[in-house]
């Protein structure tokens, strides 16, 4: 435009300098707020947890020692207390609960996959209008309260719940089944509440599947089950992994389900952590448990990131 006309003889006018600055650096006004916020309130907390995991329990506020201290002669002392981590590896309870949580999460993810895959497949193959309704039906529980759905499940599986009432009435059993307060209840809880998380990413990949590939396979004489194994399944692997991680990782750390449905001796790591915090008030140990837990999760989280970003970008 008339840049030259408005430009003062000695360099750009202040207004232009501002516009120039915006054109060059304006994008940081968009990038920085979310980047800073998430950095401070999501990433930095892990640094603090790491710091506190090396501290000692102390009778003061906050209830742990500083790992960096300044002596009167201005020397900085770093005192790392590895006792919390040593404690984790000597007390069986933590190792056992890690393994127990991994096993519970693994098998519930497997069941979710077995139930969720055919459901996602059916939705992906349904007509467009049916698809919209079905998706809404799958998403709706995701919007309703997680806590209340766990509570609702209690009404089905408790000793005098619907399941036992129906089975007793039909004479299938003669004494109520004890499901509540058992491992089975925890499995049921995870499967019931996390199933939509499995179905949605699976649907997203199955829907994009190029049907002409299946036709080609059929034309070449492949029976449907072979086409499924050779074409559909391999192409849906990103969805399988994204969905599985979306169930598996949060399920390992699940607290509400084992606390409400599992027995008092249920050893899910989320519950052990909770007790360490609210029961024993030993924050350095809880921080150490979180850090070790997180180290175990880095792999699965990276796997999830890889596949979900890939799915996102096309």
């Amino acid at each position, binding site marked *: 435009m008339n840049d030259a006309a408005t430009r003062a003889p000695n360099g750009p006018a202040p207004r232009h300098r501002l516009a120039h600055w915006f054109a060059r650096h304006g994008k940081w006004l968009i990038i920085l*707020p979310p980047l800073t916020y998430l950095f401070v309130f999501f*990433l930095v907390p892990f640094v*603090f947890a790491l710091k506190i995991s090396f501290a000692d329990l102390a009778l003061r506020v906050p209830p742990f020692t500083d790992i960096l201290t300044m002596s009167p002669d201005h020397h900085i002392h770093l005192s790392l207390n590895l006792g919390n981590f040593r404690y984790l590896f000597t007390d069986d309870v933590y190792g056992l609960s890690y393994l127990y949580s991994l096993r519970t999460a693994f098998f519930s993810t497997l069941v979710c996959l077995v*139930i969720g895959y055919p459901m996602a497949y059916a939705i992906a193959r349904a007509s467009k209008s049916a698809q919209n309704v079905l998706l809404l039906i*799958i998403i709706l529980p995701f919007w*309703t309260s997680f806590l209340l759905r766990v509570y609702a499940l209690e009404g089905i599986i408790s000793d005098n719940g*619907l399941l036992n009432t129906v089975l007793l009435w039909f004479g299938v059993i003669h004494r109520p089944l004890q499901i509540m307060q058992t491992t089975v209840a925890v499995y049921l809880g995870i499967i019931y509440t996390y199933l939509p998380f499995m179905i949605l990413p699976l649907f997203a990949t199955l829907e994009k599947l190029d049907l002409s590939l299946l036709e080609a396979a059929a034309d070449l004489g492949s029976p449907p089950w072979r086409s499924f194994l050779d074409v559909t399944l391999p192409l849906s692997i990103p969805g399988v992994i994204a969905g599985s991680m979306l169930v598996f*990782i949060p399920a390992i750390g699940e607290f509400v389900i084992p606390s409400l449905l599992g027995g008092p001796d249920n050893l899910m790591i989320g519950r052990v952590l909770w007790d360490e915090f609210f029961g024993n008030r030993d924050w350095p140990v809880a921080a150490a448990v979180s850090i070790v837990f997180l180290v175990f999760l880095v792999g699965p989280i990276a796997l999830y990131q890889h596949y979900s970003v890939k799915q996102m970008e096309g």
Partner: protein
Amino acid sequence: MERRLSPVLVTFLLLGIALLYVPMVVLIAYSFNASPLVSVWGGFSLAWYARLAHNRQILDAAWLSLRIGVIASTGAVILGTLAAIALVRFTRFRGRFMLTAMVNAPLVMPEIITGITQLLLFISMLHVIGWPHRGALTIIIAHIAFCTSYVTITVQSRLQSADRSIEEAAMDLGAGPVGAFVDTTLPIIAPALVSSWLLCLTLSLDDLVISSLVSGPGASTLPMVIYSKVKLGVTPDINALASLIICVVGVCVIVAGVAMRRTERRQNAERRLAGADP
């Protein structure tokens, strides 16, 4: 192209949907049971709903949760939208990898870890700079942090499908970058903003673990009250509350879903009429 579904698949789908819905339907049915015992049907009654209306503890907690939810989801929509714009529009910038990771990680991070680490941060901050005091404020800060991810993911996919040429045309016609974005792209992503705001609201209203961890004395949100009541035993008034919440959310989601589909269809039709779509 449509292919017929095998009856086995259809049966499987219906069974799966039943699995998702039967517990909620049963819960709603129990909430009208006059008898406080779940095993006995004592006739139809609205007594638990009436009792709910007089329960100050629950009403106070619901009001607190609602205020926290509205503030947190508004904050999260602003931050999440900015993050989505950054990730879609600026393909290269320092910190892009970190932003992507920080947006995706909270979706899978076990809540108990997020909550504990945030609590440790808040305690250290309070010790060093005297802010923030634990309570509603720390709950809001923590909720914004995890809700932002959901907003970014939702808005990101909508932004990616938005046609950028309209915005470029607006800029060619003399609009500034911000003005062009507000006039052309913002209306297109508006449905995603509304739906992610609602999603954040329900996530915030529902959160138990993070809230319990970062909250201080005195700030009890609705899930915290529900959890402690359920933990104590038989709670017919919680059945009534749960049914109310499930129904309200259900109606809202269905209405929002239908409204959004209609907006989307109208926008697509307009774009077709304008010849923007091939």
